[in-house]
């Protein structure tokens, strides 16, 4: 057992920290918020640095690494609230590579010219494993998809979207091409809490057999990887917000002493810090398990990470925001972005409660 990062992994973590630290400045983040929710210059830079190709197989021009490495980058994205569709694109790309579907898109993923989306969220109780889109066979392995998907990250920017659907009582993933306007594919851009680019997808469209992943296990795999990656983003969000709060309470004086001298303040900050450590531990454990020993344990461990990164990060960003007092309530001050990201990610692919319900089902029926 060794929980330390390998030398290679450490290089990636450092590279990502430096790159996002240098480039995802508050001014640039603000500009992306006011634009279409992506910083294209930053996107080009991370492509150039090879970060988009990390987890692609070598056969597709990638570095052949996995989910742990992807999470190292995702963490830095959260830490700097960097507006780039990294997790959305790279997690979907892993699925495509693994199933040999849409592989013509992968070189574009590596060089940054292709953005991918996964339409996991559902209306109502938001259960991504029970897709509401209905697929019917339309001959030769092709399917017709009919339905709607709410809150799809990066959809307005994407070249293609992976859509989970029900086909004859089992789940499939269908890759819907968005590179040209297609009748029966409608995208409505949405305004989100974190200002991340998202869209609502309405489908009534045929997908050729070559773009269908007809494997009932593929959706759960995509879901688990997605929540692991999102949890890594949450880890960074929590770290960034606690660092900002720690600095603020050390500097701001009230009653003739720094706020941090009040134990109510320092203990709340300490709780937030410990939450982050819980999230760090469970997220990297989950990413490693999913990559190296997929199965029931990996599933349970990933749900545990998702629970901590929903429940925990929400508490962390609430604490950091609260400890800033009125200073943080004015959006000229950057801490609110952590709150908005943390809150959005805590519900995006299910809430803490829904992760517990899913995990509880697994534990109780084992």
């Amino acid at each position, binding site marked *: 057992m060794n929980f330390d990062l390998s030398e290679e992994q450490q290089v990636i973590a450092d590279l990502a920290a430096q790159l996002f630290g240098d480039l995802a400045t508050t001014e640039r983040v603000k500009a992306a918020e006011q634009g279409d929710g992506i910083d294209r210059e930053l996107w080009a830079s991370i492509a150039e640095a090879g970060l988009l190709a990390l987890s692609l197989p070598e056969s597709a021009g990638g570095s052949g690494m996995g989910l742990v490495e992807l999470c190292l980058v995702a963490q830095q994205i959260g830490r700097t609230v960097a507006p780039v569709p990294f997790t959305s694109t790279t997690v979907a790309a892993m699925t495509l590579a693994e199933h040999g579907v849409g592989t013509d898109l992968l070189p574009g993923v590596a060089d940054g010219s292709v953005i991918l989306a996964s339409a996991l*969220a*559902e*209306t*109502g*109780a*938001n259960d991504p494993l029970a897709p509401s889109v209905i697929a019917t066979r339309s001959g030769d392995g092709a399917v017709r998809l009919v339905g709607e998907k*709410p*809150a799809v990250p990066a959809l307005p920017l994407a070249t293609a979207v992976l859509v989970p659907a029900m086909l004859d009582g089992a789940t499939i993933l269908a890759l819907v091409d968005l590179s040209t306007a297609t009748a029966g594919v409608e995208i409505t851009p*949405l*305004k*989100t*809490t*974190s*200002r991340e680019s*998202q869209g609502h997808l309405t489908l009534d469209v045929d997908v050729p057999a070559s773009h269908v992943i007809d494997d009932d296990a593929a959706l759960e795999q995509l879901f688990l990887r997605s929540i692991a990656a999102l949890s890594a983003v949450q880890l960074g969000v929590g770290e960034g917000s606690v660092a900002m709060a720690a600095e603020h309470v050390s500097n701001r*004086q*009230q*009653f*003739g*002493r720094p706020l941090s001298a*009040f134990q*109510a*303040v320092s203990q709340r900050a300490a709780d937030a810090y410990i939450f982050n450590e819980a999230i760090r531990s469970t997220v990297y454990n989950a990413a490693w398990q999913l990559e190296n020993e997929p199965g029931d344990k990996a599933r349970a461990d990933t749900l545990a990470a998702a629970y901590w990164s929903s429940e925990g990060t*929400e508490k962390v960003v*609430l604490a950091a*925001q*609260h400890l800033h*007092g*009125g200073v*943080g*309530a*004015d*959006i*000229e001050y950057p801490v*609110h972005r952590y*709150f*908005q990201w943390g*809150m*959005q990610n805590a*519900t*995006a692919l299910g*809430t803490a*409660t829904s992760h517990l*319900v899913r995990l509880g089902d697994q534990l109780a029926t084992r």
Partner: protein
Amino acid sequence: MDISDTPEEAAFRAEARAWLDEHATPRGQSTEEPDLGDHVQRARDWQRTLHEHGWAGLSWPEEFGGRGLPGAFATVFAEEMAGFEETTGSLTVSLGMVAPTLMAHGTPEQQEHIAKMLRGEELWCQLFSEPGAGSDLATLGTRAERDGDVWVVNGQKVWTSLAQFADYGILLARTDPDLPKHTGISYFIVDMNDPGIEIRPLVQMTGQAHFNETFLTDVRIPAENMVGGVGEGWSVARTTLTSERSSIAGGNSGWSVETLIEEARARGRCDDPVVRQQLAAAHCRAEVLKVMGYRIRTATSQGRFPGPEALAMKLGYARHWVASTETAMELLGADATMYDQSEPWQYAFLNQFAIRLGGGTDEVQQNIIGELGLGLPREPSADRGVPWKDLPR
């Protein structure tokens, strides 16, 4: 002990309900969210309507234009009002904080404002907090210097809610820097149209610029606009702050456990046992606040000071707010991540800091409860007795 309405209260409730049915809009009927300016104007209009029909200042003394009814009647009206859209929330500083302060400490001339507030004619803001003086309000440094019949004020206030719409403000300023921090403060009424006042809106996460930075440069305040005597500002301010706590706790939040249950029903989530448990927990929290409210009202109607329950109300309400809006976020599912000012739950969730920070933060409330409720010794402070001008900053 009898918790039911007295015959008089029951008759009053029926009368209030009938009037509201005729004059107010049931909740959930209006769809578009007015901008902040419209919202403020609607509060003024509604207050005027209430006043015209005899529903304003129900428990205020008659000498101030009120109806002089026992506090229970105001509660009955508020309970009935909860089912309707109209709100006088933007007038909280005026009606809930300034009016009680002027009733207790104002001169007869100053008290003339009260009738205007009651008619919705005057909107007031609170110029207390400064960049360096939040929880430690008493360190404030805005300076007021005497020049004949006027006080000349210079300094900066911040987080001033609705200053951009206000006619008047209540202002705390330092009149004697040589005295310890609490004793050198005086309390003023300031005309917000004074040319020395500059207001810069600050945008919050809700997308609204509900509060502002307020810069005061050579603002000239006639000496008769001081409330209480020179150096008595802190004790006058305590009346305002106590009133603020109870106003926030009794506030009309635009949501309730009922609306939470309706949301769950509308989204088909009511069969989920986890959701039911969360709804029940919200109900339990709301019950505590409601019944504590009965105790407080009983005490005040018997001429007693309410006990620790009054201190706990604001904190309890803040916690209820946060937990209930978190439940709402759960219910909204994927919609919870949408940013939409017309979505009341999203707005309430993002606006939680107004409740948890404004009027004294949760931790400051806990400190007060520890000291005043439990009798714990005050936190030691190095600045006791030290002239304000000698404080480290």
